[in-house]
């Protein structure tokens, strides 16, 4: 079965396709590969995001074995149904969106997944401008509408729900974001929509990036920062320009970059902030009262 005709210009070489090439301005090359079998539906039960991620990874046509994964259980419940015809990247996007967690390749080549409920803890790696801690050479902050969302639309297999932050809409106008998910039910979808407009409903002062010079750190500090991975907590304490109130921010690492030259090695971290503790009814960790800064989780 011919799948297509490829025009070759004079002198072009065969780029790996099986067949014969002919010199000439309009030479044609017919390629007859073995047709790939159409993908069949993958039935999936109702399950947490971590289990769904493992299930779709098990279907890879190139092997990606279980030892090559570092996957949290997840906090969001996904719907039962059939999956077919989507690229794995699309599925990873949908799972990441449904969870509001982080799907990534780890620094040693495994598939990583961090659920959204990272409870802030004491003793995390701390970046500072002076004193004890890991000194940075640059910190970038933002305070704008780039992350503003005051109307969230969440699509899930059984329907669509929306949530809005009217107070924000009055001040800043409507900024809508649609999220495509596989959440299992209306309650999960409403929880996600409410979480988005609560968290991103107002412009917030956020630390976006911190850069450190590895060549200026002690060996122990180098080991500490090289040990950091996407999804880890990292705190920042700094006083802009050295005067005024000190700012302390808890962050989750969402990006890591290295820039290595003969004379320098800088490492940059991109952050999302951890501005509040989650509060989840009946949860051993997230369900504790006396947590007045908490936000209702989903």
């Amino acid at each position, binding site marked *: 079965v011919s799948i297509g005709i490829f025009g070759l210009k004079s002198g072009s070489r065969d780029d790996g396709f099986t067949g014969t090439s002919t010199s000439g301005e309009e030479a044609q090359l017919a390629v007859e590969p073995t047709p790939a079998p*159409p*993908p*069949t*539906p*993958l*039935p999936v039960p109702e399950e947490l995001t971590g289990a769904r991620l493992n299930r*779709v990874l098990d*279907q*890879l*046509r*190139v092997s*990606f074995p279980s030892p090559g994964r570092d996957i949290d259980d997840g906090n969001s419940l996904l719907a039962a149904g059939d*999956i*077919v*015809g*989507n*690229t*794995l*990247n*699309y*599925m*990873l*996007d949908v799972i*990441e969106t449904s969870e509001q967690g*982080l*799907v*990534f*390749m780890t*620094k*040693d*080549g495994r*598939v990583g997944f961090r659920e959204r409920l990272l409870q802030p803890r004491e003793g995390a790696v701390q970046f500072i401008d002076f004193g004890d801690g890991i000194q940075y050479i640059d910190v970038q902050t933002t305070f704008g509408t*780039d*992350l503003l*969302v005051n109307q969230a639309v969440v699509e899930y297999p059984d329907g669509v729900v929306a949530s809005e932050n009217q107070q924000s809409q009055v001040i800043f106008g409507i900024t809508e*974001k649609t999220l495509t998910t596989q959440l299992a039910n209306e309650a999960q979808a409403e929880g996600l929509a409410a979480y988005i407009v609560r968290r*991103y409903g107002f412009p917030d002062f956020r630390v*976006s990036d911190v850069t450190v010079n*590895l060549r200026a750190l002690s060996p122990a500090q*180098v*080991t500490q920062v*090289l*040990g950091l991975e*996407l999804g880890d907590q990292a705190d920042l304490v700094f006083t802009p320009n050295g005067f005024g109130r000190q700012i302390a921010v808890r962050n989750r*690492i*969402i*990006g*890591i*970059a*290295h*820039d*290595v*030259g*003969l004379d320098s*090695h800088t490492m940059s971290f*991109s952050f*999302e902030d951890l501005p509040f503790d989650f509060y989840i009814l009946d949860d051993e960790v997230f369900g504790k009262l006396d947590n007045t800064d908490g936000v209702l989780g989903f």
Partner: protein
Amino acid sequence: LRVPNTQVFLGSFTGFTLNDPVLGRLDEGILDGGIDFDDVTEGVFAVSCKRGRNRDLERTTAGQLSVSFRNQTRLFDPTNPDSPFVRFVVPRRPVRVEVDGEPVFQGFVDNWAFDYEPGGDSVASFSASDGFSVFARNVNGGE
């Protein structure tokens, strides 16, 4: 001259490979195979990589790596069969980067590029991406 504290490794398949002069010999390769990584840091003068995303609400995309070598001796040149590294100068080779022995990136080579100046100055470089680039080519479905 090479970057200090940083090592770049390129991988090669060790399994039985038909028509390969070494791995194609019986009783030589391992049928199921694996990947051996060799240190190719010689001449590396720049490494940059990035994983994850820049900000909240963005999608996580494939991690990216670029490595540049001084290449005056044509060590990294697919048309130089005398180079001990010629077998590595191929796209889709597994690549791993370590700093002080700690992994910082693992993925697959996408492209090699070579810059030759008339005076003999030469730079070879490759770009690579992590496992997400493999996932992008896989359609999901049952067996």
